[in-house]
C-alpha cells in the first residue's frame, strides 16, 4: 500500500490503514523514542502515545512537508513528555561561545556505528543530550526547542554549545579514540 493511500485511509478512520501506518513507521519512531527515553518501556509508552496522537490529529496533516517528519515531531514531543518530569533542563543564562564548529576530530569518528554514537552521546549530561538531539539530529530551531522544553532560546543555545564543547573534548581525548579504534579493530 502506498503511503498516500495509507494516510488517506487513516484520515477516513480505516483500521487496516492505521495498522499499515504502524507497521511502516514503528521501528524508526521507536529509535527516536529510545534516543530520548533511554528505556525500552518508556519508549514503548511514548511510541504508543505517538500513534494515538497521530490517528487523532491526522486530519491536521495538510500533505505539505514530509509525513515522516510530522510523525517524528509527535514522537519527539511524546518522548519529551514522558521524560520531562524526570529530568529538568536547568536554566543557563551565561553566554557560551561555539568555538568547536571547525575543531579537528580524528577521522575514526567518521564511520561510527549507532551504538557507539549513542554511547558517546550518553556521556553528555541529560539536558545537553536532549538539546543536542533536538537541534543537531532532529534539526529544530532554538525557538522551537525553547517552546518544547519551556526554556529560553538563550538557554537552548548555551546548552548546545556546552554539549558541543563536551563532545569535542571527549572526541579529542586519546583515551576515547584509542578505545574506539580497539573496538573497531576487534
Amino acid at each position, binding site marked *: 500500500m502506498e503511503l498516500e493511500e495509507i494516510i488517506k485511509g487513516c484520515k477516513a478512520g480505516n483500521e487496516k490503514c492505521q*495498522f499499515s501506518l*504502524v*507497521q511502516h513507521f*514503528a*521501528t*524508526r519512531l*521507536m*529509535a527516536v523514542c*529510545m*534516543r530520548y527515553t533511554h528505556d525500552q518501556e518508556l*519508549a*514503548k509508552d511514548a*511510541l*504508543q502515545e505517538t*500513534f*494515538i496522537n497521530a*490517528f487523532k490529529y491526522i486530519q491536521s496533516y495538510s500533505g505539505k512537508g514530509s509525513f515522516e517528519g510530522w510523525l517524528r515531531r509527535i514522537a519527539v514531543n511524546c518522548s519529551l513528555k*514522558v521524560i*520531562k*518530569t*524526570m529530568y529538568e533542563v536547568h536554566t543557563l543564562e551565561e553566554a557560551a561561545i561555539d568555538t*568547536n*564548529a*571547525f*575543531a*579537528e*576530530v*580524528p*577521522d575514526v*569518528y*567518521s*564511520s*561510527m*556505528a*549507532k551504538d557507539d*554514537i549513542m554511547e558517546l*552521546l550518553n556521556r553528555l549530561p541529560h539536558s545537553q543530550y536532549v538539546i543536542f538531539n533536538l537541534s*543537531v*539530529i532532529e*534539526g529544530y530551531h532554538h525557538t522551537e526547542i525553547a517552546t518544547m522544553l519551556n526554556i529560553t532560546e538563550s538557554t537552548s543555545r548555551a546548552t548546545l554549545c556546552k554539549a*558541543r564543547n563536551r*563532545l*569535542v*573534548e*571527549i*572526541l579529542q*581525548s*586519546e*583515551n*576515547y579514540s584509542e578505545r574506539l579504534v580497539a573496538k573497531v579493530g576487534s
Partner: protein
Amino acid sequence: MKYRLFEQSIKATLNNAEETVDIGQLWNSIQTEEKKKKPLFWWFFTGLLVLATGAAAWVYPTLNKPQFQVNPTSLDKDYIQNKQENQPTAALVENHNNHINPINNTTNNNPPANTQNYTTANFHAQKKSLGLNMEKANSASKPSDAIQDKTGAESTGPVIAHVEQINSTEENILPIEIPARLLNSAHKEKIHRDVQCPTFRKNRSMKLSLIPEIGYFKPFKSLTSETAVPSETFELRKADEKSLEGLQAALYARLQRPGANWGISTGLQYTRLSEQMNLAYSYIRRDTTQGIISVTVSQTGDTITTIYGDIISETRVTGTTKAHYYLSTFDIPLSVFFEKDFNSFAIGGEAGVYFNLALASKGKILNTANDFIDVKSAAAFRSSIGVSGFAGIYVKKPLGIGNLMFSIRGRYNPSVFNTQGYGTIQKYQFVGAHLGYEIRF
C-alpha cells in the same frame, strides 16, 4: 575531519536508525488505549439522559396545566341563568368577598371578584387548593339569585359573571361574560386593580428543584498496600502524605413527590482535592568525568607520563522538599434521598451511584524514597473510576436568605482511585460544609 562533518555523519546514522518493536503488541496496546477513552462518551450521554428525564418529569405536568380565557361581553342575569341550565357541564360562579373590595355591596350589580369553573369531579379538590372557606362565604349575605349548579353546590355572593365552557374540545377554556352595564371604565379599572387571580395551577405529581452548590470538605484518605510487603515508598507516603482541603461545585436536580419525605436526586459534580508530601531525602550523587588521573615524572625528569581516565566523584545530597498532587473528579451522582424536616433544620440520608466521567490528576507524587515523579507519568491514578456506589448523611439548615441552605454532609465512597497494579489502594471519604441555593419550580 572537521567537527561539523562529524555532526552530519552522526545525524545521518541516527536518522536512519531503527529499533525492533513487536508490532502486534504495539497495535493491541493502541487499540486498548483507544477503547478505554470511548466509555467517557457513554458516561456523559447517560448523564444527559438522566437530566433530560428529570426535566421531562417537570415539564409534563406544566403542559397539562389548564388554560383560561376571559371574555367580557354583554350579558344579563336571565341569560346567565338560561345558559346555566343549558350547560352540559356544571358551572359555578363564586364571589370571594375576602379577595375584593366590593364597589356596592347593597346591590346585586357588584363587579365580579373571582370566578372559577369547576367540573363535578374536581370541584372539592379545587376548592381545597384555592383555600376557599365555603362555609364562611355562605354565612355572608346570601343573594336572592344564587345559582344552583349541577353538582348541587350553591354559589354565594351577588351574581355578576358567568363562566361557561365553550365546547367539548376546549374543555379548559372558560370565557367569563360580564354584564356590559357594569363595565363602565371606572368599574373596569376597579376590577383590574382589585381582582386577585386565584391560582389555577394543577397539582403536580412531582416537584422539581435545582440546587447550585459549592462546598469545602475534608477528605479522609485510606491508603493500603496492594502487596503483602509494602514498599518503602508506600510507607513514606502513608506516614508523611497529608490530605489538604477539598473543594466541590455541583448542580443538583431533585425530584420529589409533594409531601413525601423522599425523592431522587441527580446532577453534575466537580470535586478537587489536594495531597501534600513532605520528604526528607538523602542520596549519593555520582558524577563521572574524564581527566588526568595521574602524572608521573621520571627520575631523570625527562619523561612525564600523563594518564587520562574516568574520574568518579560522589556527593551525598540531603535536604527536605515538598510536593503536591491534585485529583479532580467529574461525576454524575444519581441517588435516592430521605429527608426529615424539623422546621428549622432537616436531617437526611442518601444512597446511590456515581457515574464518574473523568478523574484527572496533576502534580508530583513520591516515586522513590528520594524523588518525586509526575503523577501522570507514574500512571498512579485511573482516568475514570466508572460506576461506584455511595451513601451519605447530611444536616441542612435554611439561612433565611431566599432559599439559601447550609449543610454539613458526610459521604462514604468505596471506589479505588488508583490504577490496578500501581501498588496502593487509595480511597477517600468526605465530610464537608456546603452552601446551596434551592430554585424551586
